[in-house]
Each structure stands twice: as structure tokens, then as C-alpha cells.
């Protein structure tokens, strides 16, 4: 289920209380895409973490539909991510010792028994859709582009309505980066997923419906 995003009076602080990010207001319609741009240290990743419910020391509201992540406890936020959010990271964060299918379907290891088979077949379909053979025993020999596509399949295996990506193309060569940008844009537009991407990559940002510029922990 796709949900609109509604952020109000968001403030993220460091463990010592210094403000890292202040965002009075942000709205994104369901199924739309948003690029977050800005120099290093501007608070882009911090914002993405806050939107995913990963950050600590957060105040204000981060509402996905009716759910305010800031008001939830750690376990409830984890459960919300497990149902509704897919995450993609700059350096993929795969288990090198596992194969593409085991990586993409890692959620099956803790999902309720009756959902495991669905998760695996969804992961396999996503892999094939992204042009990855699910069979190899490990992903150790995969290229950066292949790894990031495995990570995308992992983010999509549970069919989330929200996709959050942190510099997804930064570790890829130009060709792989362009292909991924294309894939992500298609997912948002045709798959109806709300997509938020932190990136420096102009090609990727150009494909987004909206772009938010951050600097020194706040919008410009």
C-alpha cells in the first residue's frame, strides 16, 4: 500500500543534543518520487534515516499515511519497515557468503512461516526482472552493478509501498548507475511506489518528481 509522507517540525539531534537536521515541513504524495541533494554533511542521510525510523533523538512528526514513526517504539518501527519500507544503501550491504536469492529473500529467515515461500518467490521474480540469475552460491564474484540489483531485489521482496535509497549509484560505474536510475524511476512510476533518493547523481535526480536541496542541516 502506497502512503503519502507528511513531515512536520522534524528535528534530529546528535546523542549530545546538537541539532543535526531541522525540517519544519515536507510533503510527498503517495507514489511520487523525491530526490534529496546537498553537499556532504548537509544532513541528507540523517533525513533519510529519520524518514525510515532508523534515527535516534528525533522530535516532531514523520507521518506515513496515518502512522507517525516518531511516536512508535523501536520494535514497532522495525515492524513498520518490515511491512512498508524497502531500503537501498550505497555499498549494498549484502552477505557475501550467501547467494543472490538468499540475500534478496533474507527476510524469509524471520518472517512468519506462511509468508516465507511468498517472499522467496517474490525475491526470485525481482532478481529475474532485474536480470540477475538467482542460482549462484555466493555473490562474492558479482560486479557492483549486479550487487546493487540484488540489494534492490531485497528491498522489493516484501513488496513495500515506500522505497528509500541512500546514494544508490555512488559505488557504480556510469553505465550501471544509469541502468539503476532507470530501474528505480520505473519502479516508482509504474509500480506506484513512493521513492525517496539521497544522491549526488544528476542523472538520477533528473528522473525524480521533486528535488529537495539541503544545506547545513536544513532546506535551502
Amino acid at each position, binding site marked *: 500500500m502506497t502512503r503519502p509522507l507528511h513531515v512536520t517540525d522534524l528535528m534530529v539531534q546528535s*546523542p549530545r543534543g546538537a541539532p543535526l537536521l531541522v525540517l519544519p515541513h515536507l510533503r510527498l504524495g503517495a507514489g511520487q518520487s523525491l530526490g534529496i541533494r546537498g553537499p556532504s554533511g548537509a544532513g541528507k542521510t540523517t533525513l533519510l*534515516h529519520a524518514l*525510515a525510523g*532508523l*534515527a*535516534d533523538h528525533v522530535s516532531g512528526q514523520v507521518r506515513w499515511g496515518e502512522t507517525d514513526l516518531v511516536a512508535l517504539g*523501536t*520494535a514497532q518501527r*522495525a*515492524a*513498520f*519497515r*518490515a*511491512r512498508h*519500507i*524497502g*531500503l537501498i*544503501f550505497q555499498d549494498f*550491504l549484502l*552477505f*557475501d*557468503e*550467501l547467494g543472490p536469492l*538468499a540475500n534478496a529473500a*533474507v*527476510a*524469509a*529467515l*524471520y518472517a*512468519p*512461516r506462511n509468508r516465507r515461500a511468498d517472499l522467496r518467490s517474490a525475491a526470485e521474480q525481482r532478481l529475474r526482472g532485474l536480470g540477475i540469475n538467482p542460482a549462484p552460491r555466493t555473490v562474492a564474484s558479482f560486479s557492483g552493478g549486479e550487487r546493487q540489483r540484488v540489494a534492490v531485489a*531485497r*528491498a522489493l521482496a516484501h513488496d513495500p509501498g515506500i522505497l528509500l535509497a541512500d546514494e544508490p549509484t555512488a559505488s557504480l560505474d556510469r553505465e550501471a548507475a544509469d541502468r539503476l536510475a532507470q530501474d528505480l524511476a520505473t519502479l516508482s512510476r509504474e509500480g506506484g511506489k513512493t521513492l525517496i533518493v539521497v544522491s549526488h547523481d544528476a542523472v538520477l535526480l533528473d528522473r525524480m518528481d521533486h528535488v529537495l536541496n539541503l544545506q547545513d542541516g536544513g532546506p535551502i
Partner: protein
Amino acid sequence: MTDLWHSLPATAQDLILLVLLILPGVLTGAAVLHRYHPWPLVRALIWRFRAVSAVFSLLIAVSVAMGIGLTAQERGLRRATAQAADKFDLIVAAPGSEMAVLMATVFLQPTDLPLLDGAAYAAIASDNRVDLAAPIAVGDSFGGAPIVGTTADLVHHLSDGRITGQIWRSADQAVIGADVPLQIGSKIHPAHGAGEAADPDAHSGHGAPLIVSGRMAPTGTPWDRAILVPIETVWGIHGLASGHAPRLADQLGPPFDAAYFPGTPAVIVRTRDLWANYALRSAFTNADQMAFFPGAVLARLFAVMGDVRQAMSLMALLTQALVAASVLSALVILTRLFRRQLALLRAIGAPGRFVMSVVWSFAATLTATGAGLGLVLGYGAAGLLSALVSERTGMAVSAAPGWAEIHLVAGFVSVTSVLALGPALAVLRQSLVAGLRG
């Protein structure tokens, strides 16, 4: 409840104790793993950090092996010692150290002992409650094997009548213990003394060599390495009286004539009835001699050793506790190694208990593997030690697996796996965002 416990067979008690010891670990595992399947990730983590994992398991293995090796070895030694004394119900000797007599008779260690005279021996041998009263003559050796002069009855008693070949028929024949490296028909030239001090030439000129006529079945005692000869032969070699009046000079074995009896350091007595032992011990104890049960002397020795054993068990337990503590602190450090992987799992929405189950299974796998390996290593080490002790003493020492060690290992694994919840929980308290950034 206590009565019920005591009414159970020993094996049942040991099994129940084992189950009780394992239970906390199993319950912890069941609670942590319920409905989760972290094993592919655990395997992946162990493989990625295989060197550290191997060292971790080996450390546990070595510490477990040391605890097990010590206790198994000590028990094997105690059993073998008790078994060695099994055939010696009652020993009568001149007053002195019971332990010295025990060492000289049961364990055949060279010892200087005062002698009992013919009258004393005759009084013992003629008591109608006595079934066997064997004098011994020790001090000579051949090729490192002690030569013991005694009676044919004692040879039958020690070997339960299981003799290959035959018992001696004349003064120039000998029966060898199961481990003596000679064959039936071999010739023996007794040397005076034993070990380094043996003098092979002292008895030369005493006529023909002895010929091995039979071999005793294994007894698992130091007597397996002894050469047994008629006591008259030993006396003869040393130029002493033969124990018999001159007209019976060729007689072997009892009855002995007190007037021609050169003396014996000890008389090994077997009674017709078990209960008579106590009466005879009193009857044979007087100003000129003492009578004692070797089993009782060993029991006193074991009582002293028991304190040592308890100290050893305590040390083994403390060592295990220390190892468990280091295992857990090492685990905290290990979890730092894969905190990015764990942060990733939490980020994509894995429940906290699942992340815990990954860390816990990792710790439990390495601990159980190390403990299992330690069990094998421990028995291996104890087996080697036992072989060494058997080689040195002639006693059949075996370090068979015992419940005590299995309980120790089960308790160790169980306690460690319960305590491993600590580091597993600590992982959840680490900052997720910091973990993701690496």
C-alpha cells in the same frame, strides 16, 4: 523426594542430572530461536570470520580438554589402584608402615622390610580360617622384571587359575606375568637387586638358569610384569635354608618347617569366608606383627587424594567459569566485527529477537563445537597419560569417559549459552545509525 532420588539406578541419576544441566541452555535456545531460522546467516558469519571463530572454538576446546583430562585421569588411576589391590584381602607383616608393605607386595616396589619368622608364619598358615597363606621373597630381578618367590597357590589365586603352559614343577622353573617380554621356554638368570642397582653377576655360579614354564593371564596389576618362581628357589640362590627339613629338601610349597624358614617380609592371606577377615586381622595383630586390609589403606589414601580431587574439580570448574567469562567478553568484541551486518538486519526490519538469535546461535555454535572438541581432546590426552602411567607402573590404567566430565561439559555449554544472551542483548542497544555507517 530424597528417598526417590536415592532409589534410582546410578545411570538414571546421571542421565537426569545431564538433562537438568542441559535444560537451561536448551530452553534459552528454544526461546531465542522460536519461529526463526538464523542458521544461513550464522554460517555466513562463521565463514567470514573463520580464523577468529576457529581460535575462539580452540580456546574453549583446550580449556575443556584440560578439565576433562585431569578428572578422567585421576579417576582412571584410582580405579586401577583399587583393582591392583583387589586380590589382596589381608596382609600380615612385621610392625611398621602399612603403606611400605602395601607398596612392596601389591605394587612390587623395591622396599626394605623386616621379616616375619617361621613360627609367626606357621601360626598364620595353621589357622583353620585361613585358606591361603603365601610368603614372598623379593629383591631380585631379570631384565627389569622383578622376581618374586612365592607359592604355587598364590599364582593360582592371582591368575584365577588362568595359566598358559603350566605352573612350576621344580625349583628351576618360573611363571611369568602377562606383560613380561619372554616366552615359555626362555631362560632366566636372576640378578641381585632391581632397577639401576641390579647386579647381574651377584648370583652367577648358582648353577643352572631358570626356565619359563607358564604365563599368567593378564591381571591388570604390577604383577603382570613380574617373574614368579618357587620361594625355595629364591632362598636357594641367596644361600638360605629351603624352608623344609633336609630330608624334604626337594619339596616345593607348604607346609614349611619353622626351624628352616628363612623369614618373609609379608604373608598374603586369603580367608575361607569373607567375615573371617576381621577376626583374623585382630588375631594376627600383636607386638611382633601387624595385619591390615590393603583396601582400607588405599581407601585412606583415596580420602586424602579425594581432597586433592575436590580441589582439582574446583579448579577445573573455576577455569571453566573464567573461560566462559572470556568467551563472553570476546563475543562482545566479535559482535563489533559484524555490527554492520547486524545493523543492516535491524534496518530492513528484522525483529530484535531475530538479531539476538543470530548472535546467540553464533556463540552457541562455537561454544558447543569447542566443548565437543575439548571432550575428544581431553579423553585423548587422558588416554595418552594413562598409557604412560600403565607403562611406568604395570597397572592397567584406563581413562574411560565418565559422567563427571560429561556433566562438566554439559554444564559449561549450558551456562555459557545462557550468559551469551548478554552480548546478544547488548547488540540491540548499539546505535543502529552508527552501525550502518560502519
